[in-house]
C-alpha cells in the first residue's frame, strides 16, 4: 500500500501552496513534500538529492521526485543554501510516502531570509486550500 493511510497536516509546519512543507528551527529549515503531494504522485521510486552547498529560491523547483509513472518538481518554500540532504532516500525513496513529515524529509536549508516564513500557510490555511 502507498503512503500513510489518512491525510495529515501537522500544526507545527509551514506550508507552500505547491504542496511542500518547511519546519523552521534557528534559521535552518527542513523541507519535504506534503501528504497530499505524495498521495497524488503515488509510490516514490527514485529521489536523487540535490548537492549540498547549492542554493534554492523560494517558489522555484530545486529537485525532483519520481514515481513509476511520473516525475514531479519539488518547489522550495523558502530561499537559502542547502546544508544537508537526506541521503537515506536514495536506497528507500518510498520513505517519502510512508513518513512525509519524518524520515521522508528531503533537504535542510540555511535560510537567506527567515522572514519569508510569513508568506507561507499554516496548517489550517493549507487544509482550506486542499478542501
Amino acid at each position: 500500500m502507498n503512503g500513510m493511510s489518512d491525510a495529515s497536516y501537522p500544526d507545527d509546519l509551514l506550508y507552500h501552496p505547491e504542496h511542500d512543507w518547511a519546519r523552521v528551527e534557528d534559521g535552518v529549515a527542513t523541507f519535504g513534500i506534503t501528504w497530499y503531494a505524495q498521495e497524488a504522485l503515488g509510490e516514490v521510486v527514485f529521489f536523487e538529492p540535490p548537492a549540498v552547498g547549492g542554493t534554492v529560491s523560494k517558489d522555484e523547483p530545486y529537485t525532483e521526485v519520481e514515481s513509476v509513472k511520473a516525475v514531479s518538481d519539488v518547489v522550495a518554500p523558502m530561499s537559502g543554501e542547502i546544508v544537508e540532504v537526506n541521503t537515506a532516500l536514495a536506497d528507500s525513496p518510498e520513505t517519502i510516502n510512508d513518513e512525509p513529515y519524518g524520515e521522508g524529509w528531503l533537504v535542510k536549508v540555511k535560510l537567506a531570509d527567515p522572514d519569508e516564513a510569513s508568506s507561507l500557510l499554516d496548517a489550517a490555511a493549507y487544509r482550506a486550500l486542499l478542501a
Partner: protein
Amino acid sequence: MPSTAETALRRTALYERHAAAGARLVPFAGWEMPVQYTGIRDEHLAVRREVGVFDVSHMGQVQSRGPEAEAFLQRVLSNDVRRIPEGGAQYSLLCREDGGILDDLFTYRLAACEFLTITNAANHEHDLAWMQERAASFDVDVIDCAPEFAMLAVQGPGARELVRGLADGPLPPRMHCCQRDVSGVPMFVCGTGYTGEDGVELLLDPEHAPAVWDALVSGGAQPCGLGARDTLRLEVCFHLYGNDMDVHRNPIEAGLGWCCKDGTGYIGAEAVAAARAAGTPEKLVAFAVEGPGIARQGNPILGGGVVTSGTFSPCLERGIGMGYVASERSEPGGRLEIDVRGTTRPAVIEGKPLYRPKGP
C-alpha cells in the same frame, strides 16, 4: 466549438467498480480509465507473481465477416491471415502504402469467414474507416463491434487456474480463442495478453462485465490499472502504439518485420520489403539505465535518437525503456547516454525482452 457531449470522457461498464475500489481515474484516449488502484508496483508484481485483472474495455473491436473476409484482411493486415486457423489469433500491423504504421492489432478467427480484430482505443475510429473504405472491392461486411464488448485481461502465472475454475470447459491455448461460459456468462476467451505472462483476455457483453469482474477479484485477482499495464509491457518490450511506433515509422525500424509477410500483397508490402532490403537509418532498441535515473518518453539520446518509452522497472528495479538510435549503433551491449532533463544518464542496449517472465 465541440459540444459537451463530444468532449465528455467515456466510461466503461466497470466504472462503478473502479470508483468504489478507490482507483485513480485518468483520461486516456477519450476514456476515463483507472491508472492504478493500490499502486503501480504492487499491481505489477501481483501480475508477475500471481494474477491481476485489467479493464481494457476501451480497446475497440472490428468484425470482418463474409465470403471474402480472409482475402480482405490479407490485403489490409501485414501478417499472413491465411495462416490463422479457426479459433486462432495473430498479431499484425495496419500500414499505409508507404509502410507507415497506422495501428498494431490482434485478429481472432472466430469461424472460416468471420474475424474479430482488436484495435487500440485511440485508433479505433480511424482503423474502422480505413478498413471500411478498403472493403468496398471485397465481398465482406466490416462492422464496428466496439459497443458490444467489454474486455478484461486476466494475466499472471495464476490466471488460467483462476479462470478455468469459473469456466464451463478447458481454456484455449496461447494464441487461440474459443467461446466459453465464465461465471455463467457467455464470452470469447482468448489466450493473449500484453504483460508477457500467461493468461487470457475475455470479450463479453458489457452488461455482465461487473459480475465477472467481481468473480475474478473474489477469486484472488488483483485489480490492475493502465500504469501497471505499461510497466509490464515495457519489461517484455511489447510496443505501445503512439510511443514506440506511429505513422512516421515503418515496421522494419520498429523491429516488427517479423509480422510483415511481404509476399501476401498487403497495403504497404512493397515499401516494407524495400526497407527490409535496404535497411533503415534507425532502429528501435531496448535499454536499461546504468545506475540511478529514469529515462522518460521524449528524452534525447545523445548522438542522435530519442526515448519512445521509459519507466521504472519494478522487477529489474532500474530505469528501462525503448528508443530509436542509428542502426549502426543498435546492437545489444552498446552504450548510450540519455539526456534525462539535463542530467546525462548512461544506459546499455539490451536484448529483448528486458525481463523474461518465469512462468507458472
